[in-house]
């Protein structure tokens, strides 16, 4: 349930950006969520509906772009999605890997009026 504080942080960020742009209303918020963060989009939506009441972002549509957890093999330099119970490289069977995707948690853009 880290989504409560994460959603509050997200909303603060969005409202600040909207205010800076002189916008009256936020229509859409485009979010990028890495799978590895464990942030659940439905929970973000739930908290957002509650927290945004009475703000310029009330009623805004949330759009989630989910980034899968992606690893890069340090041996053969190929990328692959992390397996559920196996973190070896499917190409060379090496197990020295680097996480290159899945930790994202940011607001990409907002649509305002």
């Amino acid at each position, binding site marked *: *349930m*880290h989504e*409560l*504080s*994460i959603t509050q*942080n*997200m909303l*603060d*960020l*969005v409202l600040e*950006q*909207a205010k800076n*742009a002189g*916008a009256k209303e936020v229509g859409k918020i485009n*979010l990028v969520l890495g799978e*590895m*963060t*464990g*942030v659940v989009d439905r929970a973000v939506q739930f908290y957002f509906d509650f927290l945004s009441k009475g703000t310029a972002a009330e009623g805004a549509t949330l759009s989630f772009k989910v980034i899968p*957890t992606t*690893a890069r093999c340090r041996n053969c330099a190929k990328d692959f999605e*992390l397996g*559920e*119970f196996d*973190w*070896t490289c499917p190409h060379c069977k090496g*197990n*020295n*890997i*680097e*996480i290159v995707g899945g*930790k994202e*948690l*940011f*607001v*990409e*853009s*907002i*649509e*305002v*009026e």
Partner: protein
Amino acid sequence: MEIKVVKDIMGANDQIAQKNRQLFDKNKVFVVNVMASPGAGKTSLILETIKRLKGRVKVGVVEGDISSSLDAEAISKEGVPVVQINTGGECHLDASMTSTALDSLPLGDIELLLIENVGNLVCPAEFNLGEDWKILISSTPEGDDKPFKYPLMFHEADVVLVNKIDLLPYLKFDVDAFSKTIKGINQKVKVFPLSCTTGEGVDQWVDWLLGQVRG
């Protein structure tokens, strides 16, 4: 009108963590964020660490729990300064809660600050507190498959303490395979197998920690 933002949602927390960091640096405090699932042995590990560091390093403790001050009471019996944070439902500590707790600690008289996070393997991994090290305690009864289930936590940890190794004869837990899995995605990690009950391996961990504190 579309506005490009591309800003990290954790940015606000990270800014406060940076302020905490400056305060720690100013007071020359080495800070360890202790994370684990409930029951893995965070408080036991902190108690065993304090006992072995007595007279060697001045320790302070921040205790994070959803509710109760049981852990803080156990630690205050060891004669070290301790502050309890009750998060009131939040499943992790954040930089702001930590900052508030720091006001109640004699930072100038602390060389090592141990922050016990809320028992949870998901959320604390997201929130920087301004610490030097993130320590994860993973206990053997939890099973050796935990890295696959909580990859972020194992990816972020600087040190993994494998606690309750005295129970290994009764469990299917492969310490070598477990260490290999973590080191595969986290090359910087140090792994120390130990038991807070028998004391096995605890000295090695504490000696290593002492080396880090004295830098």
